Protein backbone atom coordinates (compact mmCIF):
# COMPACT_ATOMS: atom_id res chain seq x y z
CA UNK A 1 0.00 0.00 0.00
CA UNK A 2 1.23 3.43 -0.86
CA UNK A 3 1.96 6.07 1.74
CA UNK A 4 2.28 9.14 -0.50
CA UNK A 5 0.81 12.20 1.14
CA UNK A 6 -1.17 14.42 -1.20
CA UNK A 7 -3.07 16.65 1.20
CA UNK A 8 -5.59 17.92 -1.33
CA UNK A 9 -7.77 19.82 1.06
CA UNK A 10 -7.34 22.21 3.96
CA UNK A 11 -7.52 21.01 7.52
CA UNK A 12 -10.72 21.95 9.32
CA UNK A 13 -11.94 21.32 12.79
CA UNK A 14 -14.15 18.55 14.07
CA UNK A 15 -17.63 19.47 15.23
CA UNK A 16 -20.64 17.62 16.58
CA UNK A 17 -22.70 19.13 13.80
CA UNK A 18 -20.61 17.30 11.21
CA UNK A 19 -21.10 14.02 13.04
CA UNK A 20 -24.85 14.65 13.14
CA UNK A 21 -24.87 15.40 9.41
CA UNK A 22 -22.86 12.25 8.76
CA UNK A 23 -25.40 10.16 10.66
CA UNK A 24 -28.23 11.89 8.83
CA UNK A 25 -26.56 11.06 5.52
CA UNK A 26 -26.07 7.46 6.49
CA UNK A 27 -29.44 6.78 8.06
CA UNK A 28 -31.54 9.69 6.72
CA UNK A 29 -33.75 7.47 4.53
CA UNK A 30 -34.49 5.09 7.40
CA UNK A 31 -35.14 7.90 9.90
CA UNK A 32 -37.56 9.57 7.47
CA UNK A 33 -39.69 6.51 6.83
CA UNK A 34 -39.77 5.53 10.51
CA UNK A 35 -40.98 9.08 11.22
CA UNK A 36 -43.76 8.72 8.65
CA UNK A 37 -44.74 5.33 10.12
CA UNK A 38 -44.90 6.79 13.63
CA UNK A 39 -47.06 9.73 12.53
CA UNK A 40 -49.48 7.46 10.66
CA UNK A 41 -49.64 5.06 13.61
CA UNK A 42 -50.27 7.92 16.07
CA UNK A 43 -53.11 9.28 13.90
CA UNK A 44 -54.75 5.84 13.81
CA UNK A 45 -54.08 5.30 17.52
CA UNK A 46 -55.80 8.56 18.41
CA UNK A 47 -58.59 8.02 15.86
CA UNK A 48 -59.39 4.43 16.83
CA UNK A 49 -57.70 3.62 20.18
CA UNK A 50 -59.72 0.44 20.78
CA UNK A 51 -58.67 -1.06 17.45
CA UNK A 52 -55.04 0.00 17.52
CA UNK A 53 -54.30 -1.12 21.08
CA UNK A 54 -55.41 -4.71 20.40
CA UNK A 55 -53.51 -7.51 18.60
CA UNK A 56 -56.03 -8.50 15.87
CA UNK A 57 -55.42 -5.43 13.68
CA UNK A 58 -51.65 -6.08 13.76
CA UNK A 59 -52.27 -9.77 13.04
CA UNK A 60 -54.29 -8.71 10.01
CA UNK A 61 -51.48 -6.40 8.81
CA UNK A 62 -48.96 -9.22 9.17
CA UNK A 63 -51.24 -11.47 7.19
CA UNK A 64 -52.02 -9.20 4.21
CA UNK A 65 -49.06 -6.80 3.91
CA UNK A 66 -46.57 -9.57 3.02
CA UNK A 67 -48.45 -10.21 -0.24
CA UNK A 68 -46.88 -7.08 -1.74
CA UNK A 69 -44.05 -6.48 0.77
CA UNK A 70 -42.37 -9.69 -0.43
CA UNK A 71 -42.18 -8.15 -3.91
CA UNK A 72 -41.44 -4.59 -2.80
CA UNK A 73 -38.22 -5.83 -1.16
CA UNK A 74 -36.51 -7.19 -4.32
CA UNK A 75 -38.17 -4.42 -6.36
CA UNK A 76 -36.06 -2.05 -4.22
CA UNK A 77 -32.98 -3.77 -5.61
CA UNK A 78 -34.26 -3.37 -9.19
CA UNK A 79 -34.87 0.36 -8.66
CA UNK A 80 -31.49 0.83 -6.95
CA UNK A 81 -29.92 -0.75 -10.05
CA UNK A 82 -31.54 2.05 -12.07
CA UNK A 83 -34.16 -0.18 -13.66
CA UNK A 84 -37.84 -1.00 -13.16
CA UNK A 85 -39.90 -4.17 -13.61
CA UNK A 86 -43.62 -3.75 -14.26
CA UNK A 87 -44.17 -7.38 -15.26
CA UNK A 88 -44.13 -8.86 -11.77
CA UNK A 89 -47.91 -9.22 -11.52
CA UNK A 90 -47.93 -11.37 -14.64
CA UNK A 91 -44.88 -13.31 -13.40
CA UNK A 92 -46.83 -14.15 -10.22
CA UNK A 93 -49.56 -15.68 -12.39
CA UNK A 94 -47.09 -17.32 -14.78
CA UNK A 95 -45.36 -19.05 -11.85
CA UNK A 96 -48.70 -20.37 -10.62
CA UNK A 97 -49.59 -21.52 -14.13
CA UNK A 98 -46.41 -23.61 -14.17
CA UNK A 99 -47.43 -24.87 -10.71
CA UNK A 100 -50.87 -25.76 -12.05
CA UNK A 101 -49.52 -27.62 -15.10
CA UNK A 102 -46.98 -29.64 -13.12
CA UNK A 103 -49.42 -30.39 -10.29
CA UNK A 104 -52.00 -31.74 -12.74
CA UNK A 105 -49.47 -33.88 -14.60
CA UNK A 106 -47.41 -35.19 -11.65
CA UNK A 107 -49.70 -34.78 -8.64
CA UNK A 108 -46.63 -33.65 -6.70
CA UNK A 109 -46.85 -30.44 -4.69
CA UNK A 110 -43.07 -30.34 -4.32
CA UNK A 111 -42.43 -30.57 -8.07
CA UNK A 112 -45.19 -28.06 -8.74
CA UNK A 113 -43.67 -25.64 -6.22
CA UNK A 114 -40.23 -26.00 -7.81
CA UNK A 115 -41.75 -25.45 -11.26
CA UNK A 116 -43.41 -22.28 -9.99
CA UNK A 117 -40.09 -20.88 -8.76
CA UNK A 118 -38.23 -21.93 -11.92
CA UNK A 119 -40.88 -20.26 -14.08
CA UNK A 120 -40.40 -17.01 -12.14
CA UNK A 121 -36.64 -17.36 -12.39
CA UNK A 122 -36.87 -17.81 -16.15
CA UNK A 123 -39.29 -14.91 -16.67
CA UNK A 124 -37.07 -12.61 -14.61
CA UNK A 125 -33.95 -13.76 -16.46
CA UNK A 126 -35.70 -13.09 -19.77
CA UNK A 127 -36.52 -9.54 -18.64
CA UNK A 128 -32.84 -9.06 -17.84
CA UNK A 129 -31.73 -10.42 -21.20
CA UNK A 130 -34.17 -8.19 -23.11
CA UNK A 131 -33.06 -5.11 -21.17
CA UNK A 132 -29.32 -5.81 -21.23
CA UNK A 133 -28.72 -7.60 -24.52
CA UNK A 134 -31.58 -5.98 -26.42
CA UNK A 135 -30.70 -2.58 -24.91
CA UNK A 136 -34.42 -1.89 -24.42
CA UNK A 137 -35.42 0.47 -21.57
CA UNK A 138 -36.76 -1.70 -18.75
CA UNK A 139 -39.96 0.36 -18.50
CA UNK A 140 -40.87 -0.58 -22.06
CA UNK A 141 -39.48 -4.11 -22.00
CA UNK A 142 -41.39 -5.12 -18.88
CA UNK A 143 -44.66 -3.58 -20.08
CA UNK A 144 -44.23 -5.90 -23.06
CA UNK A 145 -43.44 -8.98 -20.98
CA UNK A 146 -46.28 -8.07 -18.61
CA UNK A 147 -48.74 -8.52 -21.50
CA UNK A 148 -46.87 -11.53 -22.86
CA UNK A 149 -46.87 -13.58 -19.65
CA UNK A 150 -50.46 -12.62 -18.86
CA UNK A 151 -51.35 -13.83 -22.34
CA UNK A 152 -49.49 -17.10 -21.81
CA UNK A 153 -51.35 -17.59 -18.51
CA UNK A 154 -54.74 -17.03 -20.14
CA UNK A 155 -53.92 -19.29 -23.09
CA UNK A 156 -52.69 -22.16 -20.89
CA UNK A 157 -55.45 -21.92 -18.27
CA UNK A 158 -58.16 -20.94 -20.78
CA UNK A 159 -59.11 -18.36 -18.19
CA UNK A 160 -60.01 -20.98 -15.61
CA UNK A 161 -58.75 -21.01 -12.03
CA UNK A 162 -57.69 -24.03 -10.02
CA UNK A 163 -58.42 -24.99 -6.42
CA UNK A 164 -55.42 -25.60 -4.16
CA UNK A 165 -57.12 -27.40 -1.27
CA UNK A 166 -54.72 -30.28 -1.90
CA UNK A 167 -52.06 -28.14 -0.24
CA UNK A 168 -54.06 -27.75 2.98
CA UNK A 169 -52.45 -29.57 5.88
CA UNK A 170 -49.08 -29.96 4.11
CA UNK A 171 -45.83 -28.10 4.63
CA UNK A 172 -46.65 -26.22 1.40
CA UNK A 173 -49.56 -24.59 3.23
CA UNK A 174 -48.57 -24.51 6.90
CA UNK A 175 -44.99 -23.54 6.14
CA UNK A 176 -46.01 -20.68 3.86
CA UNK A 177 -49.24 -19.16 5.18
CA UNK A 178 -49.95 -21.14 8.38
CA UNK A 179 -50.11 -19.48 11.79
CA UNK A 180 -46.97 -20.05 13.83
CA UNK A 181 -47.96 -20.64 17.44
CA UNK A 182 -51.52 -20.04 16.31
CA UNK A 183 -50.92 -16.30 15.97
CA UNK A 184 -48.00 -15.29 13.77
CA UNK A 185 -48.72 -15.59 10.03
CA UNK A 186 -45.94 -17.60 8.34
CA UNK A 187 -45.92 -15.19 5.40
CA UNK A 188 -44.72 -12.51 7.82
CA UNK A 189 -41.75 -14.70 8.69
CA UNK A 190 -41.04 -15.22 4.98
CA UNK A 191 -41.17 -11.47 4.43
CA UNK A 192 -38.63 -10.94 7.20
CA UNK A 193 -36.40 -13.74 5.86
CA UNK A 194 -36.52 -12.36 2.32
CA UNK A 195 -35.83 -8.89 3.75
CA UNK A 196 -32.78 -10.16 5.62
CA UNK A 197 -31.51 -12.06 2.57
CA UNK A 198 -31.90 -8.99 0.34
CA UNK A 199 -30.32 -6.72 2.95
CA UNK A 200 -27.38 -9.10 3.14
CA UNK A 201 -27.02 -9.24 -0.65
CA UNK A 202 -27.17 -5.46 -0.98
CA UNK A 203 -25.00 -4.51 1.97
CA UNK A 204 -22.67 -7.39 2.63
CA UNK A 205 -22.07 -8.99 -0.74
CA UNK A 206 -20.09 -7.95 -3.81
CA UNK A 207 -23.19 -8.35 -5.93
CA UNK A 208 -25.09 -5.76 -3.87
CA UNK A 209 -22.14 -3.35 -3.97
CA UNK A 210 -22.25 -3.61 -7.75
CA UNK A 211 -26.03 -3.06 -7.78
CA UNK A 212 -25.55 0.31 -6.03
CA UNK A 213 -22.66 1.29 -8.30
CA UNK A 214 -24.46 0.33 -11.50
CA UNK A 215 -27.55 2.29 -10.47
CA UNK A 216 -25.54 5.30 -9.35
CA UNK A 217 -23.17 5.73 -12.30
CA UNK A 218 -23.20 2.95 -14.85
CA UNK A 219 -20.29 4.40 -16.81
CA UNK A 220 -18.07 4.65 -13.72
CA UNK A 221 -18.99 1.12 -12.73
CA UNK A 222 -18.01 -0.13 -16.17
CA UNK A 223 -14.74 1.82 -16.15
CA UNK A 224 -13.90 0.29 -12.79
CA UNK A 225 -14.41 -3.23 -14.08
CA UNK A 226 -17.88 -3.97 -12.70
CA UNK A 227 -19.74 -6.48 -14.87
CA UNK A 228 -22.77 -4.27 -15.49
CA UNK A 229 -24.62 -6.72 -17.74
CA UNK A 230 -24.34 -9.66 -15.36
CA UNK A 231 -25.38 -7.51 -12.39
CA UNK A 232 -28.54 -6.26 -14.12
CA UNK A 233 -29.56 -9.68 -15.42
CA UNK A 234 -29.14 -11.14 -11.94
CA UNK A 235 -31.26 -8.36 -10.40
CA UNK A 236 -34.16 -9.12 -12.76
CA UNK A 237 -33.73 -12.86 -12.25
CA UNK A 238 -33.92 -12.59 -8.47
CA UNK A 239 -37.01 -10.40 -8.73
CA UNK A 240 -38.69 -12.91 -11.03
CA UNK A 241 -37.97 -15.71 -8.59
CA UNK A 242 -39.41 -13.79 -5.63
CA UNK A 243 -42.45 -12.62 -7.63
CA UNK A 244 -43.30 -16.25 -8.44
CA UNK A 245 -42.95 -17.11 -4.74
CA UNK A 246 -45.24 -14.19 -3.85
CA UNK A 247 -47.76 -15.53 -6.37
CA UNK A 248 -47.69 -18.85 -4.58
CA UNK A 249 -48.12 -17.19 -1.17
CA UNK A 250 -51.15 -15.18 -2.34
CA UNK A 251 -52.75 -18.20 -4.03
CA UNK A 252 -52.22 -20.70 -1.23
CA UNK A 253 -53.59 -18.22 1.32
CA UNK A 254 -56.98 -18.38 -0.41
CA UNK A 255 -56.41 -21.95 -1.67
CA UNK A 256 -57.24 -20.91 -5.18
CA UNK A 257 -55.28 -19.71 -8.21
CA UNK A 258 -57.02 -17.09 -10.32
CA UNK A 259 -55.50 -16.39 -13.77
CA UNK A 260 -55.89 -12.70 -12.94
CA UNK A 261 -53.48 -13.15 -10.01
CA UNK A 262 -51.10 -10.21 -9.60
CA UNK A 263 -53.36 -7.52 -11.00
CA UNK A 264 -53.75 -4.71 -8.50
CA UNK A 265 -50.37 -5.14 -6.79
CA UNK A 266 -48.54 -2.50 -8.81
CA UNK A 267 -49.56 0.56 -6.77
CA UNK A 268 -48.87 -0.91 -3.33
CA UNK A 269 -45.54 -2.40 -4.34
CA UNK A 270 -44.14 0.70 -6.04
CA UNK A 271 -45.55 3.02 -3.35
CA UNK A 272 -43.73 0.96 -0.69
CA UNK A 273 -40.44 1.25 -2.55
CA UNK A 274 -40.62 5.01 -3.11
CA UNK A 275 -42.14 5.83 0.28
CA UNK A 276 -39.26 3.83 1.74
CA UNK A 277 -36.83 6.38 0.32
CA UNK A 278 -35.48 4.54 -2.71
CA UNK A 279 -34.41 7.01 -5.38
CA UNK A 280 -36.35 6.76 -8.61
CA UNK A 281 -33.07 7.58 -10.38
CA UNK A 282 -31.23 4.58 -8.91
CA UNK A 283 -28.13 4.31 -6.76
CA UNK A 284 -29.77 4.74 -3.38
CA UNK A 285 -32.38 3.04 -1.25
CA UNK A 286 -32.68 0.64 1.66
CA UNK A 287 -34.45 -2.63 2.34
CA UNK A 288 -35.34 -1.42 5.84
CA UNK A 289 -37.05 1.66 4.38
CA UNK A 290 -39.12 -0.43 2.00
CA UNK A 291 -40.01 -2.91 4.75
CA UNK A 292 -41.34 -0.20 7.07
CA UNK A 293 -43.06 1.64 4.20
CA UNK A 294 -44.85 -1.57 3.16
CA UNK A 295 -46.51 -1.70 6.56
CA UNK A 296 -47.45 1.98 6.39
CA UNK A 297 -49.11 1.34 3.02
CA UNK A 298 -50.63 -1.90 4.33
CA UNK A 299 -52.04 -0.15 7.40
CA UNK A 300 -53.70 2.73 5.60
CA UNK A 301 -56.68 0.84 4.20
CA UNK A 302 -57.65 -0.83 7.46
CA UNK A 303 -56.73 2.24 9.49
CA UNK A 304 -58.94 4.59 7.50
CA UNK A 305 -61.94 2.33 7.97
CA UNK A 306 -61.11 1.82 11.65
CA UNK A 307 -61.11 5.57 12.37
CA UNK A 308 -64.54 5.85 10.79
CA UNK A 309 -63.83 7.22 7.30
CA UNK A 310 -65.05 5.48 4.16
CA UNK A 311 -62.67 3.28 2.20
CA UNK A 312 -62.91 5.79 -0.68
CA UNK A 313 -60.36 7.91 1.17
CA UNK A 314 -57.71 5.23 0.86
CA UNK A 315 -56.16 6.36 -2.43
CA UNK A 316 -56.27 10.03 -1.40
CA UNK A 317 -54.26 9.22 1.72
CA UNK A 318 -51.89 6.90 -0.19
CA UNK A 319 -51.18 9.66 -2.67
CA UNK A 320 -50.73 12.33 -0.01
CA UNK A 321 -48.35 10.26 2.09
CA UNK A 322 -46.21 9.21 -0.85
CA UNK A 323 -46.01 12.72 -2.39
CA UNK A 324 -45.30 14.47 0.92
CA UNK A 325 -42.66 11.90 1.90
CA UNK A 326 -40.88 12.00 -1.42
CA UNK A 327 -40.86 15.83 -1.45
CA UNK A 328 -39.55 15.93 2.13
CA UNK A 329 -36.79 13.46 1.28
CA UNK A 330 -35.79 15.45 -1.81
CA UNK A 331 -35.66 18.71 0.19
CA UNK A 332 -33.67 17.07 3.01
CA UNK A 333 -31.23 15.53 0.57
CA UNK A 334 -30.66 18.87 -1.22
CA UNK A 335 -30.15 20.72 2.07
CA UNK A 336 -27.57 18.22 3.26
CA UNK A 337 -25.70 18.40 -0.04
CA UNK A 338 -25.73 22.21 0.07
CA UNK A 339 -24.51 22.34 3.65
CA UNK A 340 -21.38 20.39 2.67
CA UNK A 341 -20.59 21.94 -0.69
CA UNK A 342 -18.01 24.68 -0.79
Amino acid at each position, binding site marked *: *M*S*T*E*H*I*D*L*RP*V*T*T*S*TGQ*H*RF*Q*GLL*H*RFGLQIGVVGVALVVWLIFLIGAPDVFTAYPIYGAFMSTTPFFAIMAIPMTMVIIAGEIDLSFGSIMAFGMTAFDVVLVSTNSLALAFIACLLAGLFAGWLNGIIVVKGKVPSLVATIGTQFFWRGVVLVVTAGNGIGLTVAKGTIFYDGVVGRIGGVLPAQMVWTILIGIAMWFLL*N*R*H*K*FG*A*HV*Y*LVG*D*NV*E*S*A*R*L*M*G*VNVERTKILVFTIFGLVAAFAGYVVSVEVLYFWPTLGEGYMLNTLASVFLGGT*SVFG*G*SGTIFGTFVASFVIGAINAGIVAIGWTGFWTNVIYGLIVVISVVLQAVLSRK*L*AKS*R*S*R
Partner: protein
Amino acid sequence: MDNLLQMINVSKTFGEVKALRNIHFHVGYNEIVGLVGDNGAGKSTLIKMITGYHQPDPDGGEFYLKGKKVTGWSVEKARAYGIETVYQERALADQQPLWRNIFMGREISNRFGVLDVKKMRQETSNLMLHTMGFTSAAVSADSVVKTMSGGERQGVAITRALYFKAELIILDEPTMGLSLSETKKCLEFVADIKKAGKSCIFIDHNIFHVYPVVDRIVVLDRGTIAGQFSKDQISLDELMTRLYRVAQTGRLDTSGEA
Protein backbone atom coordinates in the same frame (compact mmCIF):
# COMPACT_ATOMS: atom_id res chain seq x y z
CA MET B 1 14.98 -1.70 -25.06
CA ASP B 2 11.90 -3.09 -23.39
CA ASN B 3 9.12 -0.66 -22.61
CA LEU B 4 6.57 -0.95 -19.86
CA LEU B 5 3.85 -0.51 -22.46
CA GLN B 6 4.07 -0.64 -26.23
CA MET B 7 1.32 -0.40 -28.86
CA ILE B 8 2.20 -1.12 -32.48
CA ASN B 9 -0.05 -0.11 -35.35
CA VAL B 10 -3.24 -0.12 -33.26
CA SER B 11 -6.50 1.38 -34.55
CA LYS B 12 -9.98 1.93 -33.14
CA THR B 13 -13.15 2.42 -35.13
CA PHE B 14 -16.63 3.33 -33.81
CA GLY B 15 -19.14 2.53 -36.55
CA GLU B 16 -18.03 4.68 -39.48
CA VAL B 17 -15.72 6.85 -37.42
CA LYS B 18 -12.02 6.00 -37.27
CA ALA B 19 -11.21 7.36 -33.80
CA LEU B 20 -7.57 6.20 -33.84
CA ARG B 21 -5.45 5.25 -36.85
CA ASN B 22 -2.26 3.18 -36.85
CA ILE B 23 -1.08 4.26 -33.43
CA HIS B 24 2.50 3.52 -32.38
CA PHE B 25 2.77 4.45 -28.74
CA HIS B 26 4.99 3.46 -25.85
CA VAL B 27 5.70 4.29 -22.24
CA GLY B 28 9.10 3.44 -20.78
CA TYR B 29 9.88 2.31 -17.26
CA ASN B 30 9.86 5.24 -14.83
CA GLU B 31 8.82 7.60 -17.58
CA ILE B 32 6.23 10.37 -17.45
CA VAL B 33 4.59 10.83 -20.83
CA GLY B 34 2.47 13.88 -21.56
CA LEU B 35 -0.34 13.23 -24.02
CA VAL B 36 -1.65 16.42 -25.57
CA GLY B 37 -4.09 17.25 -28.32
CA ASP B 38 -7.26 19.14 -29.06
CA ASN B 39 -10.79 17.99 -28.28
CA GLY B 40 -11.60 14.94 -30.39
CA ALA B 41 -7.94 14.14 -31.02
CA GLY B 42 -8.46 10.66 -29.59
CA LYS B 43 -6.74 11.03 -26.22
CA SER B 44 -9.55 9.50 -24.17
CA THR B 45 -10.07 6.70 -26.69
CA LEU B 46 -6.39 5.83 -26.53
CA ILE B 47 -6.54 5.79 -22.73
CA LYS B 48 -9.65 3.64 -22.68
CA MET B 49 -7.89 1.14 -24.95
CA ILE B 50 -4.88 0.99 -22.67
CA THR B 51 -7.15 0.38 -19.68
CA GLY B 52 -9.06 -2.38 -21.47
CA TYR B 53 -12.35 -0.50 -21.62
CA HIS B 54 -12.27 -0.37 -25.43
CA GLN B 55 -10.95 -3.23 -27.51
CA PRO B 56 -8.69 -2.28 -30.45
CA ASP B 57 -9.86 -3.11 -33.98
CA PRO B 58 -9.31 -6.80 -34.59
CA ASP B 59 -7.53 -6.37 -37.94
CA GLY B 60 -3.90 -6.09 -36.87
CA GLY B 61 -2.05 -4.15 -34.24
CA GLU B 62 -0.06 -5.48 -31.33
CA PHE B 63 -0.05 -4.74 -27.63
CA TYR B 64 2.94 -5.43 -25.39
CA LEU B 65 3.36 -5.09 -21.64
CA LYS B 66 6.78 -5.50 -20.10
CA GLY B 67 7.91 -6.94 -23.41
CA LYS B 68 5.24 -9.63 -23.48
CA LYS B 69 2.58 -9.67 -26.18
CA VAL B 70 -0.90 -9.42 -24.68
CA THR B 71 -4.15 -10.66 -26.19
CA GLY B 72 -7.73 -10.58 -24.86
CA TRP B 73 -7.17 -7.23 -23.17
CA SER B 74 -9.76 -6.25 -20.54
CA VAL B 75 -10.19 -3.91 -17.56
CA GLU B 76 -9.40 -6.78 -15.17
CA LYS B 77 -6.25 -7.72 -17.10
CA ALA B 78 -5.07 -4.11 -17.23
CA ARG B 79 -5.48 -3.83 -13.48
CA ALA B 80 -3.68 -7.11 -12.93
CA TYR B 81 -0.73 -5.62 -14.86
CA GLY B 82 -0.79 -2.58 -12.55
CA ILE B 83 -2.42 -0.05 -14.86
CA GLU B 84 -4.56 2.39 -12.91
CA THR B 85 -6.50 5.33 -14.28
CA VAL B 86 -7.82 8.54 -12.84
CA TYR B 87 -10.47 9.32 -15.41
CA GLN B 88 -11.51 12.73 -16.66
CA GLU B 89 -14.96 12.15 -15.20
CA ARG B 90 -13.27 10.82 -12.03
CA ALA B 91 -15.19 7.53 -12.34
CA LEU B 92 -16.87 8.04 -8.99
CA ALA B 93 -20.36 7.07 -7.90
CA ASP B 94 -21.83 10.25 -6.41
CA GLN B 95 -24.41 8.79 -4.05
CA GLN B 96 -22.09 6.15 -2.59
CA PRO B 97 -19.90 6.52 0.48
CA LEU B 98 -16.18 7.00 0.08
CA TRP B 99 -15.31 3.47 1.02
CA ARG B 100 -17.49 2.04 -1.73
CA ASN B 101 -15.81 4.39 -4.21
CA ILE B 102 -12.28 3.51 -3.17
CA PHE B 103 -12.96 -0.20 -3.59
CA MET B 104 -15.29 0.10 -6.60
CA GLY B 105 -15.07 -3.10 -8.63
CA ARG B 106 -12.37 -4.49 -6.31
CA GLU B 107 -14.19 -4.93 -3.04
CA ILE B 108 -12.43 -6.77 -0.23
CA SER B 109 -14.38 -10.01 0.11
CA ASN B 110 -13.99 -13.68 0.84
CA ARG B 111 -14.22 -16.39 -1.81
CA PHE B 112 -18.00 -16.41 -1.50
CA GLY B 113 -18.17 -12.72 -2.30
CA VAL B 114 -19.07 -11.68 1.27
CA LEU B 115 -17.72 -8.18 1.85
CA ASP B 116 -15.37 -7.21 4.63
CA VAL B 117 -17.08 -3.85 5.16
CA LYS B 118 -15.26 -3.13 8.41
CA LYS B 119 -11.87 -3.54 6.75
CA MET B 120 -12.85 -1.40 3.75
CA ARG B 121 -14.08 1.37 6.05
CA GLN B 122 -10.91 1.14 8.12
CA GLU B 123 -8.62 1.17 5.07
CA THR B 124 -10.53 4.15 3.68
CA SER B 125 -10.20 6.03 6.97
CA ASN B 126 -6.45 5.35 6.97
CA LEU B 127 -6.11 6.49 3.37
CA MET B 128 -8.08 9.64 4.15
CA LEU B 129 -5.84 10.50 7.03
CA HIS B 130 -2.44 9.45 5.71
CA THR B 131 -2.75 9.81 1.94
CA MET B 132 -5.46 12.32 1.17
CA GLY B 133 -4.87 14.50 4.19
CA PHE B 134 -8.55 14.60 5.13
CA THR B 135 -8.48 15.43 8.81
CA SER B 136 -11.88 17.06 9.13
CA ALA B 137 -14.73 15.36 10.95
CA ALA B 138 -16.92 16.65 8.12
CA VAL B 139 -15.57 13.92 5.84
CA SER B 140 -15.56 10.30 6.93
CA ALA B 141 -15.36 6.93 5.19
CA ASP B 142 -19.16 7.04 5.10
CA SER B 143 -19.40 10.49 3.50
CA VAL B 144 -21.10 10.42 0.13
CA VAL B 145 -19.05 11.71 -2.77
CA LYS B 146 -21.65 14.20 -4.04
CA THR B 147 -21.05 16.32 -0.95
CA MET B 148 -17.34 16.74 -1.74
CA SER B 149 -15.52 19.54 -3.57
CA GLY B 150 -13.70 19.03 -6.88
CA GLY B 151 -10.33 18.80 -5.13
CA GLU B 152 -11.59 16.25 -2.65
CA ARG B 153 -13.05 14.14 -5.43
CA GLN B 154 -9.77 14.27 -7.32
CA GLY B 155 -8.01 13.20 -4.14
CA VAL B 156 -10.30 10.18 -3.85
CA ALA B 157 -9.70 9.15 -7.47
CA ILE B 158 -5.92 9.53 -7.18
CA THR B 159 -5.80 7.73 -3.86
CA ARG B 160 -7.73 4.83 -5.35
CA ALA B 161 -5.12 4.52 -8.11
CA LEU B 162 -2.29 4.61 -5.57
CA TYR B 163 -3.87 2.14 -3.18
CA PHE B 164 -3.85 -0.63 -5.75
CA LYS B 165 -0.07 -0.45 -6.30
CA ALA B 166 -0.10 0.89 -9.82
CA GLU B 167 2.96 0.58 -12.06
CA LEU B 168 1.48 2.82 -14.71
CA ILE B 169 -0.84 5.60 -13.56
CA ILE B 170 -2.92 7.32 -16.20
CA LEU B 171 -4.18 10.77 -15.29
CA ASP B 172 -6.90 11.95 -17.67
CA GLU B 173 -7.29 15.75 -17.31
CA PRO B 174 -6.56 15.58 -13.56
CA THR B 175 -6.47 19.34 -13.09
CA MET B 176 -9.84 20.00 -14.68
CA GLY B 177 -12.07 21.97 -12.31
CA LEU B 178 -9.39 22.28 -9.62
CA SER B 179 -8.43 25.49 -7.88
CA LEU B 180 -4.90 26.85 -8.28
CA SER B 181 -3.64 25.36 -5.02
CA GLU B 182 -5.28 22.02 -5.76
CA THR B 183 -3.71 22.04 -9.25
CA LYS B 184 -0.29 22.68 -7.74
CA LYS B 185 -0.69 19.73 -5.41
CA CYS B 186 -1.87 17.54 -8.23
CA LEU B 187 1.24 18.42 -10.28
CA GLU B 188 3.42 17.68 -7.28
CA PHE B 189 1.78 14.30 -7.15
CA VAL B 190 2.76 13.64 -10.79
CA ALA B 191 6.35 14.47 -9.89
CA ASP B 192 6.07 12.07 -6.94
CA ILE B 193 5.09 9.26 -9.30
CA LYS B 194 8.46 9.66 -11.02
CA LYS B 195 10.28 9.70 -7.68
CA ALA B 196 8.49 6.52 -6.67
CA GLY B 197 9.92 4.78 -9.76
CA LYS B 198 6.58 4.41 -11.46
CA SER B 199 5.37 5.46 -14.89
CA CYS B 200 2.60 7.83 -15.85
CA ILE B 201 0.62 9.04 -18.81
CA PHE B 202 -0.49 12.59 -18.10
CA ILE B 203 -3.24 14.00 -20.30
CA ASP B 204 -4.13 17.65 -20.11
CA HIS B 205 -5.33 20.43 -22.39
CA ASN B 206 -3.13 22.87 -20.56
CA ILE B 207 0.44 22.59 -21.86
CA PHE B 208 1.64 24.74 -18.94
CA HIS B 209 0.57 21.93 -16.63
CA VAL B 210 2.04 19.18 -18.76
CA TYR B 211 5.42 20.53 -19.78
CA PRO B 212 7.09 20.98 -16.38
CA VAL B 213 6.40 17.46 -15.10
CA VAL B 214 6.85 15.13 -18.08
CA ASP B 215 9.85 13.42 -19.74
CA ARG B 216 8.32 13.15 -23.19
CA ILE B 217 5.39 14.74 -24.97
CA VAL B 218 3.23 12.92 -27.51
CA VAL B 219 0.96 15.03 -29.70
CA LEU B 220 -2.24 13.42 -30.87
CA ASP B 221 -4.28 14.99 -33.65
CA ARG B 222 -7.43 13.73 -35.38
CA GLY B 223 -6.79 10.14 -34.40
CA THR B 224 -3.12 9.93 -35.31
CA ILE B 225 0.13 10.63 -33.52
CA ALA B 226 1.29 13.88 -35.07
CA GLY B 227 4.65 13.83 -33.32
CA GLN B 228 6.57 13.31 -30.13
CA PHE B 229 9.43 15.08 -28.40
CA SER B 230 11.73 14.48 -25.49
CA LYS B 231 11.54 17.50 -23.26
CA ASP B 232 15.20 18.25 -23.82
CA GLN B 233 14.50 18.50 -27.59
CA ILE B 234 12.03 21.33 -27.38
CA SER B 235 11.33 24.45 -25.36
CA LEU B 236 7.89 25.31 -24.05
CA ASP B 237 7.60 28.24 -26.49
CA GLU B 238 8.54 26.08 -29.47
CA LEU B 239 6.11 23.37 -28.37
CA MET B 240 3.28 25.89 -28.13
CA THR B 241 4.04 27.20 -31.61
CA ARG B 242 3.95 23.71 -33.02
CA LEU B 243 0.77 22.74 -31.22
CA TYR B 244 -0.86 25.81 -32.68
CA ARG B 245 0.36 24.72 -36.13
CA VAL B 246 -1.10 21.25 -35.60
CA ALA B 247 -4.45 22.74 -34.67
CA GLN B 248 -4.41 24.85 -37.85
CA THR B 249 -2.99 22.43 -40.40
CA GLY B 250 -3.10 18.95 -38.88
CA ARG B 251 0.69 18.73 -39.33
CA LEU B 252 3.45 19.40 -36.90
CA ASP B 253 5.80 20.30 -39.74
CA THR B 254 8.88 19.74 -37.63
CA SER B 255 11.88 17.51 -37.30
CA GLY B 256 10.18 15.68 -34.41
CA GLU B 257 9.86 11.98 -35.02
CA ALA B 258 6.37 10.71 -35.76
